[in-house]
Every structure is written in C-alpha cells, then in structure tokens.
C-alpha cells in the first residue's frame, strides 16, 4: 500500500492501533488474551476480531490482505502500568512490565530512566511507577495510556 499514514493511530474504544512501515505494510496492534497464557500463538478469532475493529476505523482497508500475524508475551502488572525506577538492590534499576504499549512509550521511558540513573533517584514524571506501589497499595490508574488490551 502506498504510504498514507505517518502517525500511529490508536483507538481506545476499538482496542486497536494502526501504523504504517516505510515499505507500505500496515501493522495492526491488538490486545492480550483474556486469560493468563504462555502459548504465544495467534488465532483465527483474534485476527477476525482485530480485522473487524480495523475496518470500523478505516473502511478503505477492506481489500487489504493479511500477510502474517504473530503473538508474544505481554508482561502485565496488576495495574497495567510499567514498573520503573530504583529497586531495593543498590545500582539495580528496572524499566519493565510495559505489557501492551512498550514500543510506543519506549523513547520517553528511556529518557526518564537516563535521568533516573544520572540523578540517582526517580524523576517526578515516573515517581508514581515505582516498584513499591504494590506493597503500598498505590496503584496507578493508567488504563487510558495504552488504550488497548485492558
């Protein structure tokens, strides 16, 4: 498909995102299985549901053919938000648990983690995502940020 889409389009209500590569292929992102699984397999139901949502967003894509689908592991935390910052182990920092939106938020999380390493403490923007939030009962209401899979 001729390039027509520069930004990544995300729909929170349709649980889908659409991106186009420089070669013209379209990448559709979706959701997680509705139960814990390590199988890492795609399925017909899944691709059927995703295609339906893509067509609601962009009906003009109805003649596009599917080349491939793939599935991986989504490391979901109890509040669907990442864990970022220092840990009780000195010099050991984490930036994990990105679940369904890691590659969209990767660049800015890298900047924040670099700041965290340089300063020796979490910058304000990621303070709320610390590992201690589960023990403290201060979960992050971040479901809107990913817009898919929750």
């Amino acid at each position, binding site marked *: 498909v001729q390039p027509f889409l520069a930004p990544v389009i995300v729909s929170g209500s349709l649980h889908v995102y659409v991106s186009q590569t420089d070669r013209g292929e379209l990448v559709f992102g979706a959701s997680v299985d509705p*139960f*814990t*699984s390590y*199988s890492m397999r795609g399925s017909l139901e899944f691709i059927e549901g995703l295609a339906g949502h893509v067509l609601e967003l962009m009906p003009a894509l109805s003649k596009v053919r599917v080349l491939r689908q793939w599935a991986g592991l989504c490391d979901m935390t109890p509040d669907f938000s990442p864990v970022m910052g220092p840990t009780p182990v000195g010099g050991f920092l984490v930036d994990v648990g990105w679940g369904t939106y890691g590659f969209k938020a990767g660049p800015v999380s890298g900047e924040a983690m670099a700041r965290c390493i340089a300063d020796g403490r979490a910058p304000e923007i990621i303070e709320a995502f610390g590992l201690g939030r*589960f*023990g403290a*009962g201060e979960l992050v209401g971040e479901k809107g940020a990913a817009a898919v899979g929750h």
Partner: protein
Amino acid sequence: MILIRCPWCGQRDAGEFHYSGETTPRPDPASATAQEWRDYLYFPANPRGQVTETWYHRMGCRKFFTLQRDTDTNESRPVGGPQ
C-alpha cells in the same frame, strides 16, 4: 479455537467464559493483614504449566467453576461438577 468444558454445559467456545484468576484461599477479613490482602490481590503464582483457576460461564449457566489448565498449551479440564 480454544474450547473449555463447563462442568454443567459441556464443551463451549472460550469466548463464552470469563477468567477470574488463580484459585487461592481468600484471607479472613477479620484477621488478614494489609500484606496478606496485597499478596492475595496482586501476587498470583503465574506458573508456566498446570494451574488451578476459577472461571465464570457468563454466556451459559452463569456459574463459577474450577478449571485445571496448562498455561503453555491451554489444554484444560474442569474440576468437580456433574461432568
């Protein structure tokens, strides 16, 4: 298609069910500490392999039941119930 056997309704499409998580004993509200509640709510064992879970047949008999499932292969069988 993933099929799950409801102990009352038989084999059905997994889409009819709601996954309620690992079956773990609920802490006693009268005596549980905050830490016990947090462990119960946020720290499942999350094994790769056999796990005992609670599922809800939301589009069928609307009963909760116990399912033994392999999280690697998604093969499962109900525990208890008539079937």
